[in-house]
């Protein structure tokens, strides 16, 4: 697979199969953290970072520790022990510890970034987009580099969707909306329109 194909994959995961708008992953932060543009940008970058790292780590854990064919412990392969059913547990533990690690490192190295992202980091553990991309990488039988590209692209796609939404919602603050629609309902209706617009990208021939 050459560079062009990675680029195609990146475009496809950002626009055509956008994680939020066409796969329904990461809806909770998408609706919950999109009231202000600043926090939406912060959340987007935090998710992109964790997603890329999590893709690399979960892919390695699955390939080298759970999969009997490519296990680094040859005994497990020889005995025919199939540990792949532990995937869900292994991945969520990896992601939870990764998020904790990122939090500790940020706290020490960049207090400014920490105070901006601090409250979002614990939420990222239960962001289904992170576990979702890890599971998708395995289900689609991607290689290591492809997993990294998909993880990064999914994060950028999430950032794009949440930043667009936050920009719209800041404008909506000033407009006169019927009372029952205020807040979350109107956000969902806008998400519906955005998702409709993103469906236009499915006509792209890559």
């Amino acid at each position, binding site marked *: 697979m050459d560079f062009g194909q990675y680029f195609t994959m990146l475009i496809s995961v950002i626009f055509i199969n956008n994680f939020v708008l066409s796969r329904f992953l990461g809806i909770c932060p998408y609706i919950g953290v999109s009231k202000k543009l600043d926090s939406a940008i912060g959340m987007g970058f935090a998710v992109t970072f964790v997603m890329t790292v999590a893709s690399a780590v979960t892919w390695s854990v699955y390939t080298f520790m759970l999969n009997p064919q490519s296990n680094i412990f040859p005994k497990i392969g020889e005995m025919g022990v199939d540990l792949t059913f532990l995937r869900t*547990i292994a991945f969520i*533990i990896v992601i939870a510890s990764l998020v904790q690690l990122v939090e500790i490192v940020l706290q020490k190295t960049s207090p400014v970034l920490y105070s901006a992202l601090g409250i979002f980091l614990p939420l990222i553990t239960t962001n289904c987009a992170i576990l979702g991309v890890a599971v998708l990488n395995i289900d689609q039988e991607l290689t290591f580099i492809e997993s990294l590209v998909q993880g990064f692209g999914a994060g950028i796609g999430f950032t794009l969707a949440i930043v667009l939404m936050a920009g719209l919602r800041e404008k909506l603050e000033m407009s006169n909306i019927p009372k029952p629609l*205020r807040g979350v309902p109107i956000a969902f209706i806008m998400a*519906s329109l955005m*998702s409709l617009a993103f469906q236009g990208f499915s006509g792209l021939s890559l």
Partner: protein
Amino acid sequence: MSVLKELTKGIYKENPVFRLALGLCPTLAVTSSVENGVGMGLAATAVLLCSNIIISLVRNLVPKKIRIPIYITIIATFVTIVELLMNAYFPALYKSLGIFVPLIVVNCIILGRAEAFASRNNMFMSIVDAIGMGVGFTLSLVVISTFREVLGNGTFYGMNVLPSSYEPAMFMVQAPGAFLTLGLILAFFNWLDLRKTGN
């Protein structure tokens, strides 16, 4: 604290989807047909029930600081069990729910109930809470998927309910229809509230 109150709060007053806006990813993703909605609802209820029982039993043994990782591990264990059972006995459903079966782990309803209820109450009350919340979640999925399947496919639970002259609106079973349906239902609940308070 009456048992009946805990059992029924999940259905209307504290409905996880329509009132608390939790667990939205599976809510939107699997509701393109009623069958998938019921399957997801029951699978999540089973996990919620088991995890609530175990968490309420170990609640005094778990150190406060590491409680979240422990809860997630317990939940992930039950999700794996449900995943394997579903793959063995309902392979078609397992296939159509796809990655949303392992993603029950990160369903905020389950971790939310563990944190807010099971870690503070005894086993019996936690079972009651899990059943109430699970039924509430399943009912919400059925409501949303009914709208989407009837309008988008002309069927209900696979049976034709609309005359054949009806042209199904594909829009409803695709992604935009999911967002729109949930938005309008949430608006309806807000409207009910506003009417009650007299505004």
